């Protein structure tokens, strides 16, 4: 009769194994944990220890697919069939995210990718804003403070990514978490309401069935996005401008 090894487990080991088992449960298929454990308290301000970023794998991005755009529209209440910008021409209407097709003229090879606010570390839109309405939060999210925006549209001209739009007419029926209105400039806000709620995802990243969009903390070495950036060659659009964008692309 030899003693069973199981009884040799010290309390500490047991707790450790239990924690490992719990972690395994969270990654089981069908169960989705929105990184709630890492969420900061609601009464804490955004911290510069975190830098939110996004990685878009253009190899996984389908040409005809528009899911990320429609998801953003439903989440934040802009554009789409129910748009209440009735009198604006298509090029005037708000556009927080758009699909762009790249074509290599010599080979004819085409690629499709979403482009939105690149959440620069050194954002030109913030530099040019005369009222400090265009701003970068401590955690790297670039936003428009509509309370201060006077609608001068300098930021629209300064942005190399054409990421910003101006709202030309009175709006109704806005989303409670995404206020927007006439006379203000707006752009992708990296679903900041979701990030602040600890969900750690954006509407577009959730909607992408191919898993082409990853959102996470660039400063956290263990985060999925940091790992992917470490292990694969990625690109910033117009890296030559030295803006250090928070949105990175793979495969372009």
């Amino acid at each position, binding site marked *: 009769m030899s003693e069973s090894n199981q009884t040799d487990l010290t309390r500490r080991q047991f707790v450790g194994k239990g924690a490992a088992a719990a972690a395994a449960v969270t990654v089981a298929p*069908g169960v*989705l944990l929105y990184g709630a454990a890492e969420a900061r308290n*609601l*009464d*804490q*301000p*955004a911290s510069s220890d975190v830098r939110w970023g996004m990685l878009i794998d253009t190899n996984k991005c389908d040409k005809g697919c528009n899911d990320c755009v429609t998801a953003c529209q439903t989440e934040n209440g802009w554009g789409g069939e129910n748009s209440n910008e009735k009198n604006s021409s298509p090029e005037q209407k708000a556009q927080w995210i758009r699909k762009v097709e790249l074509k290599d003229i010599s080979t004819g090879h085409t690629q499709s990718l979403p482009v939105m606010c690149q959440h620069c570390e050194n954002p030109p839109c913030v530099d040019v804003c005369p009222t400090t309405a265009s*701003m970068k*939060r*401590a*955690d790297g999210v670039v*936003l428009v*403070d*509509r*309370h201060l925006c006077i609608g001068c549209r300098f930021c629209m001209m300064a942005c190399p990514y054409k990421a910003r739009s101006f709202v030309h007419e*009175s*709006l*109704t*029926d*806005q*989303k*409670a*978490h995404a*206020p*927007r*209105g*006439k006379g*203000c400039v707006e752009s992708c806000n990296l679903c*900041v309401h979701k990030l*602040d*709620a600890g969900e750690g995802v954006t509407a577009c990243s*959730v*909607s992408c*069935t191919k898993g082409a969009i990853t959102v996470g903390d660039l400063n956290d070495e263990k985060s999925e996005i940091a790992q992917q950036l470490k292990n694969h060659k990625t690109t910033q659009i117009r890296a030559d401008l030295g803006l250090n964008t928070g949105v990175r692309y793979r495969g372009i």
Partner: protein
Amino acid sequence: MKPVRKLLGLLSAALLLTMLVPNAIAEVGPIIPKAIKGKQCVEDTSEMRRNHMDYLKKHRVEALRHGVRTKQYSLKECLECHVPAKGTETSAENGQFCKNCHVFVGVKLDCFDCHATQPEPLDAKAAKLHPFATPAMKALGRIDQPHSAIVMNRLATEKREAE
């Protein structure tokens, strides 16, 4: 006799006045619809009447620019108590809580040029918090009825059919 009658006359006149005056004031002042939820505001009513704009302004700076997402002084939370949710039956005669006063005192209210005028309906909130509201469920459009029992039943029947 005469002074007594005079006194009685005065008294009745005074009584009439006391009965009339409150009604007269009520007619002049704005209609203030009762809060839908809760009995006590985040601060005393008198304090809120005078200084709500300061609380809101302080909160808006902290929430938007610094990401402090406390609920206490958020405009969204004001609406939760003072405005019926989207899709609920409302009586138009009472008007809107914020608007009634602002119209009465002649102060322009432009919060709602951008902000939602009504809270999200309860169903939408439940769907957001619901454990079944995973991206896959959303993609399949299965969170239109967020009640867990309904979802469970549907999943079970579908599974049975698949088998």
